[in-house]
């Protein structure tokens, strides 16, 4: 069994100010972390480099979330003193993430450039134009309580139609839906055809761009608000990245057939 130090459960924590309304702190858990759920995340802030005794909770705890927005401006000077961390409470233990600085992994100049790039893209993504698709992102759970449908030898699910884990093998299947608009850049043609070893298939590919964070992974799901069609994120390319912080992400999405269990996942 893998054991974790308290800070190792978080793969990385990022802080960004890319969107209006405050700073966003997003995180990614280590894929091997398998504590049973539910996961309660609490954002904590320290105004002095994480000095003991300076940590204070920000807002309400979030259950099964992927990011938290801190609406309060905390940085007034040039010197960066404000740092964040995430407190993760599971039924087994309480974990803390490493300290994340307000600028994340970016230098100030990089951050300013990143903000300009994202702002430009967000202008396109948030405006109701022909090629902007409002939707929601469902991040696939990689951690949590193993579902009863998993194969005891491989750990993968034996039932991809299972309503408890939505075919992921982890109870709950996906984290809470978060609003994420897609800038639709290209739609390949659709043609219902018969392929030799696949039977009848209807392969469509939708290409688009997402702005900034949260970080995407293949097999996450994007749901179109207008049609409720759900798409697998099939491939990801960070077309703009600075110091490993994704600024603009280009994705290839593929629609999931209507009978799939993922259509039962509640979005609210």
């Amino acid at each position, binding site marked *: 069994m893998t054991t974790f130090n308290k800070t190792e459960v978080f793969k990385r924590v990022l802080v960004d100010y890319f969107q209006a309304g405050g700073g966003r702190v997003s995180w990614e858990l280590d894929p091997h972390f398998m504590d049973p759920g539910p996961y309660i995340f609490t954002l904590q802030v320290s105004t002095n480099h994480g000095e003991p005794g300076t940590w204070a909770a920000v807002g309400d705890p979030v259950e099964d979330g992927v990011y938290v927005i801190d609406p309060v401006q905390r940085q007034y000077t040039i010197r960066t003193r404000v740092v964040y961390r995430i407190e993760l409470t599971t039924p087994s233990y309480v974990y803390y993430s490493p300290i994340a600085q307000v600028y994340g992994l970016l230098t100030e100049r990089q951050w300013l450039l990143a903000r300009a790039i994202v702002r430009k893209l967000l202008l396109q993504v948030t405006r109701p134009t022909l090629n902007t698709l409002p939707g929601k992102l469902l991040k696939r759970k990689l951690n949590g309580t193993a579902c009863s449908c998993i194969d005891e030898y491989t750990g*993968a699910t034996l*039932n*991809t139609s299972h309503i408890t884990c939505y075919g992921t093998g982890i109870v709950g299947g996906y984290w809470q839906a978060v609003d994420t608009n897609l800038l639709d850049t290209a739609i390949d043609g659709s043609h219902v055809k018969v392929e030799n070893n*696949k039977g009848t298939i209807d392969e469509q590919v939708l290409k688009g761009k997402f702005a900034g964070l949260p970080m995407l992974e293949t097999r996450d799901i994007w749901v179109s608000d207008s049609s409720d069609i759900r798409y697998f994120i*099939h491939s990801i390319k960070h077309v703009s990245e600075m110091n490993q912080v994704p600024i603009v992400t280009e994705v290839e999405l593929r629609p999931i*057939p209507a009978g799939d269990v993922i259509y039962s996942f509640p979005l609210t």
Partner: protein
Amino acid sequence: MADESSSPESGWLDFDFSEDLINICNNGNRRLLITGLLRKFLITYFSDDDHFEATALAGRVWRDDPSSPLLIESALTWTPKIAGKRPAILIKAGELKLETPTIGGMQQVTAAGTAEFMKMVTGNHLILVITPTEPETEALAAEAYRAIVQCEALLRRNLNLLRVRVTGVSAPQLSEEYNQMVVVGFGLEYGWSDNWSIEYDTEVLTTITLL
């Protein structure tokens, strides 16, 4: 489990061969008939989870509607209503080989002068099991091929075939679809003999006399 007293063929798997036999009697053995027969057999098997050996597959029964949790279909059938549905068991017809085991294909000439002919026909079908994960594909494939293996003798006898056998199970392969799929295929080989006779109205000409 069906009530054993309900009919002589009731038991673990109730499979009605009567229509297939009528088809064979009317049309002879055909490759499409084998495709349909395999689909019918797999549908019968996967329609009731009492048939399943693997308890993990409980509830994964085939239903005759688009919301069925399992697709069983000929691989080359155009089914737009349920395009891309997974998990799926697809049946793909393979090559037929016709062999002539005797000189001129003739088996014998009867006392009445009727010539009887015969061709040996061997063919194969590939059954593909496709799901998004390896364990699910392996479990479904094992269930399907073991069902056929256990009924090989029954199928051979009732359909008057000379050979029915599962020849092998492929390694799991990845296939790119809307999600990454895992495919396992297994081959089924079968054979029959086609027999027919010719009654000649006239004798073969041996002498020609020019006047």
